[in-house]
Structures are given as structure tokens and as C-alpha cells.
């Protein structure tokens, strides 16, 4: 099967998963105590049974389950996720506004974790009993055991009271003026701490994985062949061995995207990063159900897209993978 056929199959499967997410969303809303009528009535400061009934008819709540579900799905198909009464904005607009910040955080943290983790793993694999190896072992214990918000708060304390190098809240400094480049640099400056915090959880996992994977690859026959060809040590390590060791790391990193988004929710809250996580928390505290459901849907969409991208990357790294 060709590259594009396989990718097309993955996209179709991803769409199915998203439909399943929508069904789940809908079921959750239906079985949760209270409905939109209650919410609206609550906002109006109470309403009698007649008005409630009117609202239910207007929102189609009197229809059978499958009709409601079908209407819900057809609306989502044109990216209409409903209206947020709390923010007074369509949910889709609200989410699209916050999505870039979350994508920036999630993607940069993943990239940082994969690159630094792989590098640590390679260095550790060169000397399986050396100091870097020990660090990797220690890091992986720390990364699993340390609550991410705790790491973030410790970093805030460190960088506010001791080394005031990086801003600890928000994404932009409104007092900064200048062209695109200056403002991009400002965002990057704000990004550092949240990115490092989020990456710390996954860095541990990837470095441990890269170390194990490299140790295995370094014993392979083709690495011996590369040495017998008289290639320099760094070519042997970073070209011949690493390219083969990268597969498992990328595979696992791809599976971690939904966990990274979960982590981002917490990290955004800690650093007041204006993304989907912050929005999710606000809408949950405000009982703004359409927004919450919209966020759950969009974040699943992001995971599906990233999974497809990971799959494509794996195929580029390893020509042996033919079919999914």
C-alpha cells in the first residue's frame, strides 16, 4: 500500500473516532443532571414550568434521542458547537481564539522533550554506567513522581524570588511594542517556563526510552559494519544508530499527545497561559457545558491530527514500515 493510501485510511479512521467522541459528548450531556433549559432558566433568575417547556421545544429537547443526536452531529459537521452563554460568544470562535496558544505550548514542549530526551538517551547509552546514565535514571523517576503543577510552582518560586529571568504568567507583555519579530520574541520569552515544566514530565520518559533503544541498536550488526567502514564515531552514533533508535521514541511520543494535552491543562493554569486549558477550567467553574464539550471535541481532534502526523513521520524515518 502506498504512503498516501495508508494516510487516507488513517484519516478515515480518525474521523470515525471523532464521531465516537461526539456521541459520548452527547450521552454525557443527556445523562447529566439538569439540561440547557435549567441553565437558561437559572440565568434568567428562575422560570415557571410553561416557560421551561417553551425553551425545551425551542432547543429541540422534546425530540427523541436519535433526532437530537443527529441534529447535534450535523451542527458539529459545520463546526457549529453551540453558543456559550457565559462568554456570550459562539463556542467555535472562543476555541479557535485559544487554540493557537495551546498548540504552541503542546508542540514546543513535545519537541523539546523529544530532542533533549533523545540526546540524553544517546549520551547515556555511550556509557551505560556513567554519570549521564545515572541522571537519566534519576530523571525518569522524578518525571513520573513529581506532580506537574508542583514542578511549575517550584519554578515560579525560583524565577520570581531568586532569578527573575523569565516572566511567570501570561503569554504576552502588553507594554512591549514593536514589529512582529519583537512580539514573537516576547511570546517566546513567556513560553520558556511553561514549556520546560510541561516537557519535564515527558523528557524523563523519552530519555529512558532513547537510552534503552540506543543500547539495543549499538549492538546491531549494521553498527559494526559502519565502524568497519571507518566512519567517525559521531557519524556512527548520530547517523547510523540514532536513525534506527528514533523509531520507538517517535512511536511513544505520538501516543503521548493526549497526555501532553492533559498536562497542558494544568500547566496553563499554573502559568496563566491563555489557552484551551485555562478556558476549560473557566467554563467548568461556570458550568458552561457547550464550551466544555467543545473543548473536549477539539482536543480529541488535535490528538487525532497529531497521531496521523506521527504516523507519517514514522514512515519517513523507517522505509520498512509499509502498512499501518
Amino acid at each position, binding site marked *: 500500500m502506498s504512503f498516501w493510501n495508508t494516510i487516507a485510511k488513517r484519516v478515515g479512521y480518525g474521523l470515525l473516532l471523532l464521531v465516537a467522541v461526539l456521541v459520548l459528548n452527547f450521552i454525557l450531556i443527556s445523562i447529566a443532571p439538569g439540561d440547557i433549559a435549567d441553565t437558561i432558566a437559572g440565568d434568567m433568575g428562575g422560570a415557571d414550568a410553561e416557560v421551561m417547556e417553551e425553551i425545551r421545544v425551542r432547543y429541540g429537547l422534546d425530540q427523541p434521542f436519535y433526532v437530537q443526536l443527529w441534529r447535534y452531529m450535523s451542527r458539529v459537521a459545520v463546526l457549529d458547537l453551540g453558543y456559550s452563554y457565559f462568554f456570550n460568544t459562539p463556542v467555535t470562535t472562543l476555541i479557535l481564539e485559544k487554540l493557537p496558544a495551546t498548540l504552541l505550548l503542546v508542540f514546543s514542549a513535545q519537541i523539546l522533550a523529544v530532542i533533549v530526551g533523545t540526546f540524553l538517551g544517546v549520551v547515556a547509552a555511550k556509557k551505560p554506567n556513567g554519570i549521564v546514565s545515572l541522571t537519566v535514571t534519576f530523571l525518569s523517576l522524578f518525571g513520573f513522581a513529581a*506532580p506537574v*503543577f508542583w514542578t511549575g510552582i517550584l519554578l515560579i518560586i525560583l524565577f520570581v524570588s531568586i532569578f527573575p529571568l523569565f516572566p511567570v504568567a501570561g503569554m504576552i507583555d502588553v507594554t512591549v511594542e514593536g514589529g512582529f519579530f519583537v512580539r514573537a520574541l516576547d511570546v517566546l520569552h513567556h513560553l520558556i517556563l511553561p514549556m520546560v515544566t510541561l516537557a519535564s514530565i515527558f523528557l524523563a520518559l523519552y530519555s529512558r526510552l532513547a537510552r534503552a533503544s540506543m543500547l539495543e541498536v549499538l549492538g546491531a550488526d549494521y553498527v559494526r559494519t559502519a565502524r568497519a567502514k571507518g566512519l567517525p564515531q559521531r557519524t556512527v552514533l548520530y547517523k547510523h544508530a540514532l536513525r534506527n533508535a528514533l523509531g520507538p521514541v517517535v512511536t511513544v511520543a505520538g501516543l503521548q499527545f*493526549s497526555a501532553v494535552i492533559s498536562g497542558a491543562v494544568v500547566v496553563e493554569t499554573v502559568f496563566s497561559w491563555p489557552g484551551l486549558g485555562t478556558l476549560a477550567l473557566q467554563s467548568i467553574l461556570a458550568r458552561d457545558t457547550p464550551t466544555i464539550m467543545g473543548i473536549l471535541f477539539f482536543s480529541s481532534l488535535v490528538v487525532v491530527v497529531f497521531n496521523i502526523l506521527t504516523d507519517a513521520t514514522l514512515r519517513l524515518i523507517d522505509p520498512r514500515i509499509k502498512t499501518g
Partner: protein
Amino acid sequence: MTDHAAPALKVQHPLTEMAAMFFQNRSAVAGLALLISILLFTFVGPYLYPTDPFEMVWTPLSFPGEEGFLLGTDYLGRDILAAMMAGGQVSMAIGLAAAVISVVIGVSVGAFAGYYGGVVEEALMRFTEFFQVLPTLLFSMVIVALFGASLLTVTLAIGVVSWTAVARVTRSEFLRIRELEYVSAARSGSARDGYLIFRVILPNALPPIIVQANLMVGSAILFEAALSFLGLSDPNIMSWGQVIGSNRPYILDAGFAVAIPGFAIFLTVLAISLIGDGLNDALNPKLRQR
């Protein structure tokens, strides 16, 4: 075969052998010692230090050591040491209960998928994949938001979203063991499916499931802490995450009120994962020999 000579050899009970291997592992023993100390602290501590964790006892946010309050006071002037003890009980109870839920779901899904194969396996594994696509924390936030924050909903919300890893491990173990001779023999006989799944295969599939379940307790504790930190927990119940969440606005004046419970969580999960590594080393060599 020289099996006849077996009585001459000193044969250890497998459990004794595993325990011996576990106790040879220094970091696993350290983890066990750490966990026992934490359990003593949270469950025996309150008898030695009977202070109500909800009672205001001193000036809010006073530094550890002041006026005899070893770990200081929180933003309401409550004794953090007492809160650590009470909160530990809740955090660990939720962690354990949520882990039990996720292990029950995960083992069921994995066992049926691995045992029956075919369409059943396909459907169950797609179901598992579906749960892997949902960002777990967001999903459990949604559950808590829709059904209210109580001890029960929080525990359920954690358990319901964290079973996928257990399901995968269980399935692959079942796939492997299903093909072994003694299972095929029992299968071709008249043994019922339920008997085969729970009495024949499951006991042999346990070692990696136990390792995974142990790690689940750790991640459930972390999960509860994250939810509490976000303010999605029962405010009337003290847990470590709750202490962190409620004191978060004051981190710049009183970082200790957040750092201390965070450290407690860190130590607990660290102890659990050290034990997990030890269990893995003790249980898995057995697996390969079989």
C-alpha cells in the same frame, strides 16, 4: 530428563523466591521503607498529634517552625502538619480505589479481547483506542463538572479514564498464554470460557498486571492531586491536592504551603514506582522462564 532427581534439590516456593529477589533489590526495599513510613505518618500520626486539620489554630501563612507548628499554617491559619496527615489518608484512599476501578475495567476489556480474539478483540481494542484519544484529564474534568465534585465522582472519574494501559497489558498476556499447551488442552476439553479466563489464564497473566496496577495507584494519586489543584474536588474533604489547590494564590508569600504537600505526593509516588521497578524485576524473569 533428570526430573527424578528433583526431590534431592531444595525447591523454594515461587513466592518465597520472588520475595527474596525483591528484597535483594536495594532501591525497591528503600521504596517499601519509604511507603511504610508515609503510611505510618498518615494513619498512626493523627493519634500522636491530635489536631483538627480544619480548625484555625494560628496566624494564617506562618512559616514552618513558628510557634511549634512544624510545617507552618495555611491561608486559613490551619495546621499544615495535621492537614498532611488527614490529606494523606484521603489521597491514598482515592488512589487505591481509582486504581482498583481501572484495573477491573482494564482486566475485563483486555481479558475478553485477548481470549475471544476476532471481532470481539477488534471492537474492544477500538474502544480502548477511543479512550486513548480523549485527553484523560480533560475528560475527567468534564465528568466531575457534569456530575458534581464528590469523593465518589472524583474516584470514578479517575478510574474510568485510566484503564487503557491495563487493558493493553492484559490483552497481550492473554494472547500469549492462550496459545500455551496447557490452555489449548483445557480448551479442547469441556472447560467453560469463564473457568478458563478467570481460573486458568488470569492467574498466569498476573505478574505484569500487578506491576501495572501498582503504577496505577501512583498515577491515580497524581491525578487526584491535579483535579484538586484545579479546584475540582470536594472542598469539605482534605486531601494533599486540596491543600495545594487552596493555597495556590499565596505561593509567592508562602511557597511552603504548596511545596510541602507537593513533596509528600512526590515521595509517595516515588516510593510506589521504586516498588514497581522491584516488582517488575522480581516477577518478570519468572515470566521468561516459563
